[in-house]
């Protein structure tokens, strides 16, 4: 079963708007990561938030983590057409393997 599951599955916004994607997971974690994948390419690591952190920023990215609700959100502010991609959250399972959700497909229209 998926450790991380993203919501929504697809999101379409206009350039300049903010995009928010959510991730829920099932078991306790040490950290949670977000990755981005451009169409037909490999995944690129965006940001890692540790279980003792509640919020983290990196440029236009803001990640929050609520361990009591077992959920995380990724906010992209002032989106650009180049942000169009799929976004995945990932956590480790008990065996130490990284488990990815099925992703949110973000489309930013110019």
């Amino acid at each position: 079963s998926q450790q991380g599951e993203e919501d929504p599955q697809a999101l379409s916004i206009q350039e300049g708007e903010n995009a928010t994607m959510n991730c829920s997971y099932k078991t306790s974690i040490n950290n949670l990561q977000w990755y981005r994948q451009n169409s037909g390419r490999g995944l690129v690591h965006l940001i890692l938030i540790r279980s003792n952190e509640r919020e983290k920023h990196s440029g236009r990215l803001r990640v929050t983590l609520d361990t009591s609700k077992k959920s995380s959100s990724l906010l992209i502010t002032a989106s650009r057409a180049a942000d169009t991609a799929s976004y995945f959250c990932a956590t480790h399972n008990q065996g130490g393997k990284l488990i990815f959700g099925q992703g949110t497909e973000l489309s930013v229209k110019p």
Partner: protein
Amino acid sequence: DVKVTQSSRYLVKRTGEKVFLECVQDMDHENMFWYRQDPGLGLRLIYFSYDVKMKEKGDIPEGYSVSREKKERFSLILESASTNQTSMYLCAIGGSRRSDTQYFGPGTRLTVL
């Protein structure tokens, strides 16, 4: 910058052929991973390796084998390719056993006819 390369971006093979997908890294990472990615199923781990000559099964190892003879190279082998192995194959490397960030190659889109 971390560099992970995969031998082919696109590959077309016939049913029953033996297929080799190669992944090479330049970062001296111990851990290397092979995933396949399919619409609606996300990324699924096929095999991984924590060191040279070491391999462990992931979630979907059936129909695949791997080889890690050198630290920088991790090969995925389809002994007898089947149409249900048509997929995007992604190689990744990571820093330590429970880490954390993984770095991905560009992917190989394999079509088995």
